[in-house]
C-alpha cells in the first residue's frame, strides 16, 4: 500500500539514516574471519567459511590462522601485521590447504576496524595471473592523452566513463556529481546501446543518503557482484571480546543495506561497482558501474579502477579549479577596479555605477541597487523604489548576517513574485544597519530532468504492519519545471560581494571620520570667529567712546571759544563716530544670531509678531502705518529670533515707504513641509536685479542721507531664516511695493544644534 500523501509529514531524517555499519552480514562471494592478535586466534567467522574451507564452523572457531596456513605464509603475515600500515600486505595471495590435499587461492585483505580488531577478508582469486597491467597502462595513457586534448569538463567526464567501462566491461558506467543541495546529476555515461540512458538526469539526495555517503568516503571502491545473493551471517553474532556486533564499516565484503539492494533491483542492476571521487575531503561524486547480471571484478582490477579514477579525477579537479580560478581572477580585477573608482569619486556610490566595469559585473547580475541613507541608486533592471523599500525593511527584520543570498526570493518573501522577472535571485550585503547593496537576477524557468519523481523517491510500505521505506520502482525521465528561481549565485560571486562589503565599510568609516574631523574643525573655527567678532566689536567700542566723549567734552567746555566751522566739524566727528558705533552694534547682533544658538521650541508666531510691533510702536505711530496680519500659527522656532525677523522686515517696510502712509500685511500659508510667511508693503519697492544683493552684509541701495542704516538688517534676517533651515527672498518691482517671504520648516530643524551658550562662556575667561 502506498501512502505518498503522508510522506511529507513523516520524519524522513530518521528513515534516511539507517545504521548501516552495525549489520554483521557480508556478501556471499568472500569469507570473513575476525582474528585476535597476536596469536591470530579465530573469534568469529562468516557462515560460508565452513564450505569454502571445508572445516566446520565449530572447528574453525577453535583454531587460529596458523592452523589454516603454512608457516611460511604465517611468518610473512605476522611480520607485515607488525608494521604500522597494512598497505604493504594488501592484497596478499594466500592459499589454504583443503582436506583433500588441494589448495584454494584467495585474495586476502587485512584491516583493523574502529575498535582495533583485526579482520581478514578472503575472496577466491579468479585468475592466478595479475591483471595485465600493461594493457591497463596503455588504456589509461591513451585516455590521458585524449584528456589533454579535450577542452571542457564534460568531455573529460565522458572519457573517464568510457575508459572505466572498457577496463571493467560493465553494461553501464556513469559519472555522477553531487550538487550543493545533495542531489546528484549524471554528467557522463557510457552504456550498452540497448539500455535506457540516464545521462543528464538528476537523482534526489535520498537515493544516496548521508550515512551511505560517509561509507563512500572511507571505502573508496565498493563492489556488489551479485545483488540477488543472500547475505551471509557472521558467527557468533556478537564478538566474544567486545560482546557487540562486529563493526564492518571498512570491510569490502560488507553486505549492502537491504534498501540499497532493493533500489538496485528496481533499477535492474545485477552487479554494481562504485568508485568514490573525493575533493578536499568531500564526496564530489561517484563513478557508478552497473551490470544487468551478476559480475565479479577482481581486487586488482578494482584497485586499478580506483587508481584510474583518482588520477583522472585529479585532472577534472584541476580543470574545474582553473575554470573557477579564471572567473575568480576576473572578479578580483573588477573588485579592485571598483575599490579604485570608489576612492577616486567623492561619493563612493558614483564609483560603483559610473564606470566600466560596474557593480553589476561583480556578480554578473542584471540589476543592482544601493540603498544609502534612505536614498536609492539603481542600475540595470531593478524592482521599483517602492518595492525596494519594502524589501529593505524585510531584510532589516530578517537578516543579521554579513551577506544574504537566494536564487528563489519568492520562496521566503512572497511579494517577490510581483517582480520575479527582475529579481527572483537576490544577493544582499548590509552596510551598517540601514544601508544595503542589492543585486538582482531574473527568473529563469528551468526544466530539471529527474530519474523518477524526486518527491516519490521512497515509498512507504506498510504491508507488514510496520513502516518501511522502499525505493521507488520507476527511474524514467521525470521533468520538473522550476519557477520563481534565478540562476544560482556562485561561491566566487558571493565572496566578491563580501570583499566589496569590506571595502565599502572601510570607505564609509573613513568618510565618517573625515566628516567628523571636518565638523570639529568647522565648529572650532566657527567658535573662534564668533569670539573674534564679539571681542573685536566690543574692543572697538572703547576707543570710539573715547573719541565721542572727548569731542563732546570739547564742545561743552569751549562752546563760546569755537567758531561756526569748528562746531560743524565737531558735528561731523560726532556723526561719524555714532555711525561707527551703530555699525559695530549691528555686527555684534549679526554674529549673535548663531552665537547664542537657536533654541527651538513650539512658539506662537503671533506673539513674536506682537512683540516686534511693540518694539516698533513709536515709528508706527509716527508714520501712521497700517499693519494687518493673518492669524499666525504655532511654529518650531526661536522666539527671539523670529521676533527680530519680523521686526527687521516690518521696520524696513516702514523705512522704505513712499509719501503715502505705509500699509503692511503679514501673511502665512502652509505647504507639506514648511510655513511660508510674507511681509508685504506699499513702499518704494526694489529693482529685481538687486533682490539677492540686499541680503548681503553691509550692502545698501541708498545713501545714508536718503535712508539711514548699516545694511545689516536683511543680512541678519537671512541668517535667522537659514539658521532655521528655511529660506528668505523678496518679490518686488521698483515703485510697486515689496513682499518679503521667509519659510520655516514645520518640524523645526531635524537636529537640535548644540547650545551656543557653552561657547560663549569662554568669553568670560578673557583677560
Amino acid at each position, binding site marked *: 500500500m502506498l501512502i505518498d500523501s503522508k510522506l511529507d509529514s513523516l520524519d524522513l531524517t530518521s528513515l534516511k539514516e539507517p545504521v548501516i555499519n552495525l549489520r554483521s552480514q557480508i556478501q556471499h562471494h568472500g569469507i570473513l574471519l575476525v582474528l585476535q592478535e597476536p596469536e591470530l586466534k579465530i573469534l568469529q567467522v562468516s557462515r560460508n567459511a565452513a564450505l569454502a574451507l571445508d572445516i566446520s564452523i565449530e572447528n574453525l572457531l577453535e583454531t587460529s590462522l596458523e592452523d589454516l596456513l603454512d608457516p611460511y605464509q604465517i611468518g610473512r603475515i605476522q611480520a607485515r601485521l607488525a608494521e604500522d600500515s597494512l598497505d604493504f600486505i594488501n592484497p596478499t595471495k594466500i592459499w589454504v590447504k583443503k582436506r583433500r590435499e588441494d589448495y584454494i587461492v584467495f585474495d586476502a585483505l587485512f584491516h583493523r576496524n574502529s575498535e582495533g580488531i583485526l579482520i581478514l577478508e578472503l575472496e577466491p582469486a579468479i585468475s592466478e595471473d595479475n591483471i595485465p597491467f600493461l594493457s591497463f597502462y596503455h588504456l589509461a595513457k591513451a585516455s590521458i592523452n585524449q584528456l589533454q586534448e579535450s577542452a571542457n569538463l564534460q568531455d573529460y567526464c565522458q572519457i573517464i566513463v568510457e575508459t572505466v567501462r572498457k577496463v571493467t566491461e560493465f553494461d553501464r558506467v556513469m559519472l555522477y556529481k553531487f550538487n550543493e543541495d545533495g542531489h546528484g546529476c549524471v554528467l557522463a555515461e557510457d552504456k550498452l546501446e540497448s539500455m535506457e540512458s540516464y545521462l543528464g538526469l538528476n537523482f534526489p539526495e535520498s537515493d544516496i543518503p548521508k550515512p551511505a555517503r560517509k561509507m563512500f568516503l572511507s571505502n573508496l571502491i565498493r563492489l556488489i557482484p551479485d545483488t540477488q545473493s543472500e547475505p551471509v551471517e557472521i558467527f557468533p553474532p556478537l564478538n566474544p571480546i567486545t560482546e557487540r556486533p562486529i563493526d564492518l564499516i571498512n570491510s569490502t565484503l560488507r553486505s549492502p543495506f537491504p534498501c540499497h539492494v532493493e533500489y538496485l533491483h528496481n533499477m535492474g542492476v545485477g552487479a554494481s561497482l562504485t568508485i568514490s571521487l573525493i575533493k578536499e575531503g568531500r564526496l564530489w561524486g561517484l563513478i557508478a558501474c552497473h551490470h544487468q547480471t551478476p559480475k565479479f571484478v577482481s581486487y586488482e582490477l578494482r584497485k586499478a579502477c580506483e587508481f584510474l579514477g583518482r588520477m583522472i579525477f585529479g585532472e577534472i579537479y584541476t580543470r574545474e579549479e582553473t575554470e573557477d580560478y579564471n572567473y575568480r581572477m576576473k572578479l578580483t580585477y573588477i573588485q579592485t577596479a571598483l575599490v579604485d573608482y570608489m576612492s577616486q569619486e567623492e561619493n563612493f556610490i558614483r564609483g560603483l555605477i559610473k564606470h566600466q566595469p560596474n557593480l553589476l559585473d561583480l556578480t554578473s547580475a542584471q540589476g543592482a541597487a544601493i540603498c544609502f541613507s534612505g536614498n536609492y541608486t539603481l542600475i540595470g533592471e531593478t524592482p521599483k523604489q517602492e518595492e525596494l523599500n519594502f524589501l529593505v525593511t524585510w531584510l532589516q527584520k530578517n537578516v543579521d548576517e554579513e551577506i544574504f543570498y537566494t536564487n528563489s526570493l519568492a520562496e521566503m518573501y512572497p511579494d517577490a513574485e510581483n517582480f520575479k522577472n527582475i529579481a527572483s535571485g537576490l544577493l544582499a550585503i548590509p552596510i551598517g544597519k540601514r544601508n544595503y547593496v542589492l543585486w538582482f537576477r531574473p527568473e529563469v524557468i528551468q526544466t530539471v530532468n529527474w530519474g523518477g519523481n524526486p518527491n516519490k523517491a521512497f515509498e512507504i510500505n506498510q504491508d507488514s504492519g510496520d513502516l518501511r521505506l522502499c525505493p521507488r520502482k520507476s527511474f524514467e525521465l521525470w521533468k520538473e519545471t522550476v519557477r520563481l528561481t534565478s540562476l544560482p549565485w556562485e561561491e566566487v560571486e558571493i565572496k566578491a560581494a563580501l570583499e566589496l562589503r569590506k571595502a565599502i565599510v572601510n570607505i564609509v568609516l573613513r568618510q565618517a571620520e573625515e566628516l567628523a574631523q571636518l565638523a570639529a574643525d568647522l565648529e572650532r573655527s566657527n567658535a573662534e570667529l564668533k569670539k573674534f567678532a*564679539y571681542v573685536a566689536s*566690543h574692543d572697538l*567700542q*572703547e576707543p570710539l*567712546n*573715547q573719541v*565721542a*566723549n*572727548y569731542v*563732546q*567734552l570739547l564742545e*561743552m567746555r569751549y562752546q563760546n571759544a569755537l567758531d561756526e566751522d569748528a562746531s560743524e566739524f565737531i558735528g561731523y566727528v560726532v556723526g561719524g563716530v*555714532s555711525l561707527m*558705533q551703530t555699525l559695530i552694534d549691528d555686527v555684534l547682533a549679526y554674529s549673535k544670531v548663531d552665537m547664542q544658538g537657536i533654541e527651538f521650541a513650539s512658539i506662537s508666531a503671533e506673539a513674536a509678531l506682537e512683540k516686534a510691533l511693540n518694539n516698533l510702536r513709536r515709528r508706527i505711530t509716527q508714520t501712521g502705518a497700517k499693519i494687518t496680519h493673518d492669524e499666525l500659527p504655532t511654529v518650531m522656532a526661536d522666539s527671539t529670533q523670529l521676533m527680530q525677523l519680523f521686526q527687521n522686515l516690518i521696520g524696513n517696510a516702514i523705512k522704505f515707504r513712499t509719501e503715502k502712509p505705509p500699509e503692511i500685511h503679514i501673511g502665512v500659508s502652509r505647504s507639506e513641509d514648511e510655513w511660508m510667511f510674507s511681509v508685504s508693503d506699499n513702499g518704494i519697492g526694489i529693482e529685481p536685479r538687486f533682490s539677492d544683493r540686499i541680503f548681503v552684509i553691509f550692502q545698501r541701495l541708498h545713501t545714508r542721507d536718503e535712508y539711514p542704516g548699516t545694511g545689516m538688517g536683511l543680512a541678519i534676517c537671512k541668517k535667522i531664516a537659514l539658521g532655521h533651515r528655511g529660506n528668505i527672498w523678496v518679490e518686488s518691482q521698483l515703485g510697486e511695493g515689496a513682499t518679503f517671504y521667509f519659510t520655516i520648516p514645520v518640524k523645526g530643524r531635524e537636529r537640535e544644534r548644540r547650545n551656543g551658550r557653552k561657547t*560663549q*562662556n569662554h*568669553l*568670560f575667561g*578673557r*583677560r
Partner: protein
Amino acid sequence: MSVETEEKRKIIFLVEDNKADVRLIQEALKNSSLPHEVMTVRDGIEAMAFLRREGEYSSAPRPDLILLDLNLPKKDGREVLAEIKTDSKLKRIPVIVLTTSHNEDDIFHSYDLHVNCYITKSRNISQLFKIVQRIEDFWLETVTLPSEQ
C-alpha cells in the same frame, strides 16, 4: 564727632585702566558739591593691594565707594569683584561696575558675584556726567551703609 564725620571727605576708589576714562570720570565728579577724593589704580592686582593695604598701600584709606571696570590688565574686574565680595572686611563696600560692555552674560555674572549695581557707560557725554552725578548722590549721600572700623 558728627561734625567731623560730615566734613570727612569721601573716598571714591576708581579701578580703570584707560587714562582717558579716568579723566572723564574725574571731570564728571568735578561738578560735585560733596567733598570727595578720587583714588585710582590701573589694574586688578593693584586694586586688591590697595584694598588690603599691602606694600606701598599700607596706609591706604578704606574707600567709601568702588567704581570698577570689568576689562582690566593682570587681574580681571570680574575676579576683583569676586575677591572683594568674598572678603569679610571688604564685602560691605559698595561696588559699582562701570563698563562699556552690555553683554548679558557680563551682567548676569556680575550680579551673581553680588555687585551692588551694574552701569553701562553712556556714549553721550552729558548723560555720562549725569550718571556719575547720580551715583555719587545715591551711594554717597542717600544710602545708609553700616559703619565700619
